[in-house]
């Protein structure tokens, strides 16, 4: 059986084949750009100020990042609110709170500071859940940058667009969209210098000299160690994999709380499991703001809470499939 080919139609076949090939090529290009964007956030030197809005919240943050050998050094200072500084060396975080004269030692588990907003993952892993496309190029802060679009393959995650500086691949702008294609979160550098313009001193603590006697609080770091909590999620949405699980104390609780962290390479979720007794909750409940969704699910004498940058349905699917590991 053959289909009739309209006159001149055969001339379309090579063009169609070329189109398919170009489409595949474009996807490869997008993956290459995404790889550069992920890599650059860790390997490049940069310093600047970015604005971040999520839901109704807006904030400004100064960030400096330098990589020396295999070590990443970073200094982060929120420009709103009381003074606070985070000095990061790889996953070790030193948080300086001068008002409380406290240095809080923490281990990075879920924290991802712009422009390193994507967890360390490969474009291939991301491409399993998102279609990768290249968008337009534009000029931002005097740099040329290329938009990369991450379009979710299902309704269980949000779309993202990243604008990568063309020379380094560094993400200078990022947007997250809901199902109605409305921007619900965005980052943008308002000042940026890169490469040799960034000094080694830019990533050192400025606040350390402000207080004579610091008190060190190491509890967060101790709690951030991975342990087997005995819990699992039987039915995580496709593409989400567990990256760590730990047991931590939360204010007002007498018993430790289990935390399981899942990511699809772009979005992440924390699943918290704790005794349902403060006082007991009997009904599910949820809140949403910007990209952040919080969903609680009573499960017998335990309470399961999911918080993450995902739609409500995703958090619900996670929470409702939490079970004791056999």
């Amino acid at each position, binding site marked *: 059986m053959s289909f009739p080919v309209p006159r001149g139609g055969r001339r379309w076949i090579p063009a169609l084949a070329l189109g398919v090939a170009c489409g595949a090529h474009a996807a490869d290009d997008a993956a290459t750009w995404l790889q550069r964007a992920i890599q650059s956030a860790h390997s490049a030197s940069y310093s600047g100020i970015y604005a971040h809005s999520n*839901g*109704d*919240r*807006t*904030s400004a943050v100064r960030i400096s990042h330098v990589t020396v050998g295999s070590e990443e050094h970073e200094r*982060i200072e*929120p420009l*709103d*609110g*009381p003074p*606070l500084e*985070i000095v990061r060396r790889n996953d070790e*975080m030193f*948080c300086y*709170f001068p*008002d*409380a*004269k*406290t240095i*809080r030692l*923490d281990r*990075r*588990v*879920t*924290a991802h*500071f712009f422009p390193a907003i994507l967890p360390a993952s490969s474009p291939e892993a991301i491409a399993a859940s998102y279609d990768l496309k290249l968008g337009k190029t534009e000029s931002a802060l005097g740099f040329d940058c290329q938009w990369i679009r991450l379009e979710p393959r299902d309704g269980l995650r949000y779309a993202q667009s990243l604008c990568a500086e063309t020379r380094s691949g560094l993400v200078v702008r990022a947007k997250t969209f809901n199902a109605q294609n409305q921007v619900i979160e965005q980052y943008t550098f308002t000042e940026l210098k890169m490469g040799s313009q960034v000094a080694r001193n830019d990533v050192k603590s400025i606040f350390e000299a402000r207080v004579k006697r610091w*008190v060190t*609080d190491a*509890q967060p770091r101790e709690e951030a160690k991975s342990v087997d909590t005995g819990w699992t999620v039987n039915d995580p949405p496709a593409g989400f994999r567990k990256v760590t699980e730990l047991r*931590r104390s*939360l*204010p*007002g609780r007498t018993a430790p*709380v289990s*935390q399981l962290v899942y990511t699809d390479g772009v979005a*992440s979720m*924390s699943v*918290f499991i704790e005794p349902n007794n*403060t*006082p*007991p*909750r*009997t*009904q*599910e*409940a*949820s*809140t*949403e*703001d910007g990209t*952040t969704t*919080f969903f*609680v699910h009573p499960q017998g004498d335990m309470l399961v*809470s999911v*918080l*993450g940058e995902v739609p409500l349905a995703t958090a619900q699917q996670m929470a409702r499939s939490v079970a004791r590991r056999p």
Partner: protein
Amino acid sequence: MTHEISSLMDGELGPQEAGQALQACCGSEEHKRTWYLYHVIGDSMRGQAPRRLALPSGVLDSLKAQPTVLAPRRKLMDTTFARVSLAAAASVATVGVVGWMGTQGGQVADEGVVARNATGLQPVANTRTQPVLDVQDYLVAHRQIPSPELYRQVNNRAAARAR
């Protein structure tokens, strides 16, 4: 006089009464402070508070004495932490108050209500049997990023050490 100041702010006074209220208001430090306090409260509730509040110490005491309309009364101003929190709160308020909506099965929650508050989410009176839906601690644990909630935890620990 506080009633007149309140009415003046609400535009409920006639021209003559408004003139009298303004004169009386400006003639007394206490009334000026009340005038300022009412504006700070109003701005904060609308999410329009200034970036950093230069609050005279008396204003903090006045704030403490104000009846709480939305949330159960908290002894917030008794510690250094509280003052730090207020600064954080003011800062957050400048950029927009967090607007979260609690839902239960798609319906607006009537038991686990979360109110707009300058520090982010603030649990409000629990009118039914369900506990309030308070995400603060989970936010800090999940994001590990600076937030008013993180200040609260750190300052709580500092206060506990000082005791």
